[in-house]
């Protein structure tokens, strides 16, 4: 996968989250917590599936820690770090 900056990852994620939630991408802000955007367990797993498809990174088996997934920005940083041992 080509190297993407955090901002580029963020932009892609915003588009994908907007698709999952059927909302305008402008409504998805990078620093807003994902639950307050309306994501629940099901929507969150849909997002993880999208991350695997788009970024070739399977995060379901990672610890799914709040720090890595709380916001779009945090998730973009986590994706940017790539797979971790």
């Amino acid at each position, binding site marked *: 996968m080509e190297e993407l900056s955090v901002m580029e990852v963020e932009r892609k994620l915003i588009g994908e989250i907007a698709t*999952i*939630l*059927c*909302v305008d991408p402008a409504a998805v802000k990078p620093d807003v917590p*994902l*639950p307050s955007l*309306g*994501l*629940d*367990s*099901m929507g*969150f*797993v*849909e997002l*993880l*599936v999208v991350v*695997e498809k788009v970024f070739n990174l399977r995060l*379901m088996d990672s*610890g*799914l*820690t*709040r720090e*890595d*997934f*709380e916001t779009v920005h945090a998730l973009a940083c986590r994706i940017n770090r790539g797979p971790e041992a």
Partner: protein
Amino acid sequence: MKVRLPYSRAKRYLTGIDWTILTLDRMSRRATGGSNDSQIVLELQGAFDDRRFRAALAEFVRLFPVLAGKSMRDWNLAPYWKIPRAGHAVPVRVESRRIDRQDLMSALGEFVNTRFSSPVEHLAFGVFHVDDDRHYLAMRFDHRLFDAQGAEAFLELFQRWYSGEDCRARLAEIALTEPAHLNDWKNKFEAGKQLVRMLRALVGTPLMVLPRPAPLKGRTFKFCLMEFDARETQAITGRAYAEAGFLMFMPYTLAGAIQALDEIFKARANGGREYLLSVSVDLRTPKTAASQLFFNHLSFLIFRIPAVDAGDRRKVLEAIRAQMYEQIKSGFPRALSEASMLMRILPPALLSRFLLKPLRGEFASLGFSCVGKGGYALSQFMEATLANLFHMPMLPVPPGVGLVVNQFGNRMNAVLTSLDGMFSEEEEQRIQEKMRHLL
């Protein structure tokens, strides 16, 4: 080019999921004589005026003739909900009485177990006054017409309308009609293949099922309410995120439910080796929620947990998470919704046989649902403050047992539903204690 057949405003074609819910309703009627109804309960603090509520409700339901409809089959064989013309009378019964707080669950249980008196009655309200400042309002509804989120949204719309808000845009947004979906057959058959593969994988699995009490005819449902206050809910959410992962609230509560019931299942389920859990999931998005108020907009995830692993929290959580991921990745919930369109040709009696055949007359070990936040997002109902909101669904028979978890504001509730006689009072007590301990 896609050809769309014109459809009448008096018909709401039923989707495959609507038809499945109708079939589950018929299955329950055949088994117990009761229907697959549900109930939403609002706990209210402050003054509540019965007469004002009855008057407002009578006026409000007149906006929705769909509430007095019935299911029929069209010339093209697609089933539909016949919507009466505007101005048609909508029968909605309202009962009101005083109760002692300790009789609350039996009063609410009695109310939800009461059958509607006519085929076109699908909604009833019970107002239970504990004292002048505490009341419980129960809305019993026909599951064919509302699912849990839809029922919450209906009550929220009532409150907005009652408080004088201009609801014209909201009312106009509600989708009452639905096309017959007699197109795009390739997709439906592809989805059908996926569903058949899933069902085939279940064949021959000795399921963990609880023996149902006999005789089944005339048997009602019992309900145990477990309330968790804000502090407890925050602690549960914290543990869910730490143990199951961020936002993994549903898998965590499902794991808790399996483990709380495991001891009783193992003592009584003959020869079962695997739990099969049917979990209903809402397919609405924040954008479509306002329009999808009536009928069913849900699908299911199916989880299989080896009984031998049920005592190990880590293994149960891992199995749920992995299966949830794989099912969502393969598009199973939407494929099920699409494939079920093909089943509408089958009359309910035949469809129920088709659904029960792979598991030799069983359906699942346990039904489970985690109703999301936000269906009812206001803090008032009429003039009273809304202190809590929970759901009391009757369940299809089989399995006749299940658990529904919901969050309201910063609180959480879990309601165990079971056929009366399935658990002793001591067992019910133990399940509740275990749930509290495990969550």
